[in-house]
């Protein structure tokens, strides 16, 4: 459903994406793992069109996305750091996003808004929200329009354990509905529960793209963190 072909991007002299070729099917839930600054977020931002690659192309259902905008109806994005207009209230933010969509969506999914009890702080201004509350707002916005593809950039960072569980359950339910889920995180235990496949990126290069079962079989380790450690050792 989503395909990246020889994607390249550099910021100045630093190469953040180096000939990335990936192909994802719907129903897959993919973890992007890699050290800080390895290009995970840049790759996700390329899919969203927030970052324009130097060369290469991304295809969604066979159609190139460069210069397009309406394909973003099918994406739900939860940024790493949710930054929102300071002088807007939470309720206003949701109203505005709904207004901008002009009714062009299949159906609204307010499930997460209810679980996180967004209503309770809808009168608070975005400025006064804590990091975790911002994360909740970001998560609700990502799921709100029932998108085909979920792009979650470190979704659980800053969330309390209880909310993390709610979010994880939600992601699993959406995955079972046959959606494509892309997650980056540094918390491997979370990823292990959520994802079917793992991509390891380092210095902008895709090191491997394997299913979790494959990884387990290959390394003989049950835990994802151990399996990864084993692979890294073998590479070195």
């Amino acid at each position, binding site marked *: 459903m989503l395909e990246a072909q020889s994607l390249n991007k550099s910021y100045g002299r630093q190469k953040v994406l180096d000939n990335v070729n990936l192909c994802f099917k719907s129903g897959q839930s993919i973890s992007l793992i890699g050290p800080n600054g390895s290009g995970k977020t840049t790759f996700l931002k390329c899919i969203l*069109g927030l970052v*324009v690659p130097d060369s290469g192309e991304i295809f969604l259902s066979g159609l190139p996305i460069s210069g397009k905008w309406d394909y973003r109806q099918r994406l739900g*994005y939860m940024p790493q750091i949710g930054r929102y*207009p*300071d002088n807007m209230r939470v309720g206003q933010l949701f109203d505005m996003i709904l207004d901008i969509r002009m009714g062009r969506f299949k159906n609204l999914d307010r499930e997460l808004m209810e679980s996180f009890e967004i209503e309770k702080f809808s009168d608070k201004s975005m400025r006064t929200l804590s990091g975790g509350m911002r994360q909740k707002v970001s998560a609700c916005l990502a799921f709100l329009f029932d998108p085909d593809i979920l792009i979650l950039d470190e979704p659980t960072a800053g969330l309390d354990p209880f909310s993390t569980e709610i979010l994880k359950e939600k992601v699993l339910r959406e995955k079972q509905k046959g959606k494509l889920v892309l997650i980056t995180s540094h918390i491997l235990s979370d990823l292990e529960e959520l994802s079917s496949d793992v991509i390891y990126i380092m210095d902008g290069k895709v090191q491997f793209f394997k299913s979790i079962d494959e990884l387990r079989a290959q390394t003989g380790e049950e835990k994802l963190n151990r399996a990864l450690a084993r692979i890294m050792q073998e590479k070195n």
Partner: protein
Amino acid sequence: MLRIVKYVLLDIIQNKILIGYTLFLFFVSIGLFNLSDDPTKGVIGLINVFLTVIPLVSIVFSTIHFYNSYEFIELLASQPVKRSLILWSQFWGLVFAMLLSVLIGVGIPIIIFSPTAAGFSLFFSVLGLSLVFVSIALLASVLTRDKAKGIGVVLLLWFFFALLYDAIVLFMMFALADYPLEKVMLLFVSINPIDLARVAVLLQLDISALMGYTGAIFREFLGTWWGIAYAFSILFAWATIPMLIAIRVFRKKDL
């Protein structure tokens, strides 16, 4: 697009600096018109104040607003909204806000004290200048990522157009006084939007003493009406071309 412009405008109108700016324009206008019985003198006094202050406020305010809306822009860019539409909305939001300020701060006093051709050409000149400097500000902000650097760049641009440019033109005039350079000077005036606005008002006032060298050349070559039409079309170009370049840059910008 109007939906997004609405949110941009709502955000700007709440800004206290803009309200202060409008009040400042309003009271300066009323004050200068009340200084003498002749409204023409009021208009002349206002040209000198406005041609410095209005470009400065327009360019700095627009730049700061752009950087402060970065989160908003980022949020919209991840939604199914066209990139160019996002920047156009910022532009129109700022233009409407500046229009409102000039309308209240300059338009109303002019209608009360000096509803003459000169008064209205002052009004349209400062309106045009506001547009020009919003447009330049957005181009500069799109090109510079860092807020402090962006504000520095636009301050330099303002300094150049408001002060430095005239000094350079004067210097060239003295240095090359032996050559017939009238047409070249005409070209040089056309390059600076602030000079153009000044000439457009002075042409209406019919005071050759104040018109200066460039104004005199303008009249000689173009006559009053052609001169004004020419001045406004160049101002229009100044308002649109930087913005069109900004849109091109913004479409490929990494957010």
